[in-house]
């Protein structure tokens, strides 16, 4: 049931928003339909087309609710006429009569994804709304994932929905001219969700696998909806290649295991294979954009790790190449940091330390624990124990999660 909920929630809500034009009524009706399904399906068995059953049940609930609310009969009729999914003017009243017809629901879901990720919403609102409305997570789950009180998250979601109505954010897929630009916003939301899952920004846990899985599921939806979008495929590849390593990234006690020390036999072979395959251009397409986009470049970096049989096998020069390309695309201090580490691995620790010294002098990563941590690691490789220890202590003071702090403390202790 939970699986059905997660996979069908978005299409039911998406269709209901289109039919009723009201986000709250749509969500209430969808919840009601799932409740009804829980009892009906337990008694009569799961229908042939659960999605269509749920949509029809939810539509009936929504229309009843709107009628009770006193919305004029004419308005309701208008909405009924607008909906195409049943193919009949009034649609079947009994969900059991529904025949399978998936196509329009896909359009509705895509509409929902783009509306939730509209650039006129703040990034916080976009992430919360996407997880709630497209992902089917409840407010409590989202609040816990981002470490804010449930009431705060509830308010954030209410405001986002209100803003959609008042600011006039359209409920539709952007025109072809806007699509590439708007798709970037959608992918940014999913990337952010995944990032929080991959390396939690605070708390006791290193990873939030539930969030990673959610991000993969949502990105999979976008890829299914827009199969020709190279950056969408690349983002899915990136998320899969990262997630494939999640079991190896922490030991039995939940402690962080760095990439070179990970047991590569525990990497998820299916996810690695799928991720690598996604990076191949699909048959009949023109292949990746030239120059490749940021998600493709990041996915290709993960692909280099995925292909290395041992840590020493890693083609660090290829990774440096990709980071150079990324740095040319976007002026991000995090890219500079990662490139410095890669250059340290490819050409010797001194190269990495020089880059990091410049980055430190720029002040752009002040207070970010991974800068001194990276310096400490390169100093350790050079045998400069005292300098490394000082950097580890800095990093420990700045670390944001307990497992990262304990990892750095272990490294410090190993210096002797």
């Amino acid at each position, binding site marked *: 049931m939970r699986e059905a909920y997660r996979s069908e929630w978005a299409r039911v809500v998406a269709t209901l928003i289109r039919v009723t034009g009201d986000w709250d009524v749509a969500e209430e009706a969808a919840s009601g339909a799932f409740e009804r399904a829980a009892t009906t399906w337990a008694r009569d068995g799961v229908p042939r087309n659960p999605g269509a059953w749920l949509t029809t049940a939810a539509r009936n609930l929504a229309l009843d609710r709107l009628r009770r609310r006193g919305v004029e009969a004419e308005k309701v009729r208008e909405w009924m006429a607008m909906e195409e999914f049943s193919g009949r003017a009034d649609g079947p009243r009994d969900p059991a009569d529904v025949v399978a017809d998936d196509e329009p629901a896909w359009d509705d879901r895509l509409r929902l994804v783009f509306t939730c990720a509209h650039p006129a919403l703040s990034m916080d609102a976009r992430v919360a709304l996407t997880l709630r409305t497209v992902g089917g997570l409840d407010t409590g789950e989202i609040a816990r994932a981002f470490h804010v009180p449930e009431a705060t998250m509830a308010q954030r979601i209410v405001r986002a929905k209100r803003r959609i109505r*008042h600011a*006039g954010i359209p409920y539709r897929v*952007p025109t072809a001219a806007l699509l590439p630009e708007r798709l970037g916003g959608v992918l940014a939301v999913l990337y952010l969700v995944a990032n929080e899952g991959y390396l939690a920004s605070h708390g006791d846990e290193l990873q939030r696998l539930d969030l990673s899985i959610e991000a993969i599921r949502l990105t999979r939806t976008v890829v299914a909806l827009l199969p020709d979008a190279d950056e969408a495929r690349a983002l899915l590849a990136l998320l899969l290649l990262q997630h494939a390593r999640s079991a190896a990234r922490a030991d039995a006690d939940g402690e962080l295991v760095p990439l070179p020390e990970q047991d590569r036999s525990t990497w998820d072979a299916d996810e690695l294979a799928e991720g690598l395959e996604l990076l191949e251009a699909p048959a009949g397409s023109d292949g990746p954009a030239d120059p490749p986009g940021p998600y493709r470049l990041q996915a290709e970096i993960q692909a280099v790790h995925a292909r290395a049989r041992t840590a020493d096998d890693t083609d660090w020069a290829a990774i440096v190449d990709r980071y150079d390309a990324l740095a040319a695309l976007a002026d991000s201090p995090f890219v500079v940091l990662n490139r410095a580490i890669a250059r340290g691995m490819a050409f010797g620790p001194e190269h990495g330390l020089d880059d990091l010294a410049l980055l430190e002098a720029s002040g752009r990563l002040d207070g970010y624990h991974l800068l001194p941590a990276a310096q400490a690691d390169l100093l350790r490789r050079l045998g400069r124990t005292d300098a490394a220890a000082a950097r580890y202590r800095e990093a420990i003071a700045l670390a944001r999660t307990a497992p990262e702090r304990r990892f750095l403390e272990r490294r410090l202790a190993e210096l002797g």
Partner: protein
Amino acid sequence: MQYALFYAEGPDALPYVPAEDNVGEWVDDIEARGVSEYGERLRPEHDATTVRVRDGQVLVVDGPFTEAKEAIGGFDVIDVRDLDEAIEIASKHPVASFGRVEIRPFVQWPDAEPGARIVPDGFAERAPHGRRYLMLVVAESTGERSEPAADAEPSGVDATEDDDPEAWVREMDGRGIRQFGEVLRPPSDATFVRRRRDEVLVTDGGYAESKEWVAGFDLIEVRDLAEAIEVAAKHPMARGGAIELRPLWPFDVHGDQIARAEREADERGRRLEPAAAEALAGASL
């Protein structure tokens, strides 16, 4: 949906290049689409006058309402399908490429007829009898600025008889002074649009640290600044917030923008409107 577009040169503004000012084409385009209702350019900040009423005293100061680094330089009222069309229109306006365009939806009154016009038919073509001012109605933040008390109520306005904006509207309509006016949705519903090189940047309008925000506006036509101040002082929002009076700056959208920019550079810093004190000298308030 109806929106007000406000043009501002923000702190991150790029230099204005008169040769690239294609505002005439922009106006032609939105008029051809039938989405344009009305637009004006405002005289610069140093010709602004701000009116407040505190404890029954009318306080008049020269200058705009806020210390913010940006000021509204002009506005347009448009009626479009949705926010995406408004963003598209805003992103093509010349100010978007060096300053910023703010998109603010109008409050849709529950009993208002859908599609009711904000700007009276033929208003733009009508020649003014007196001086035209834009009266920006400014609310002060009460912390809960982001959300109005209720959907139907403009924020900051209590429903007491004394604070009834309807009474003000009736009086000014009766005197033939108020041309049109509307209440805007709060800044939490604003959208900012910039264009930098070929990229259109859209953000939600989360205001910076400004404690004041434009809650609505009226366009008035009066004899002079003294009368404008009298009209502004009577507005209920002058008691809680402030009213900023900005003279309109007639200019030809198809005129020579380079010549215009030179003329404006010439009068920069020179006040062309009478200062509030001069305007009030001899006028009885």
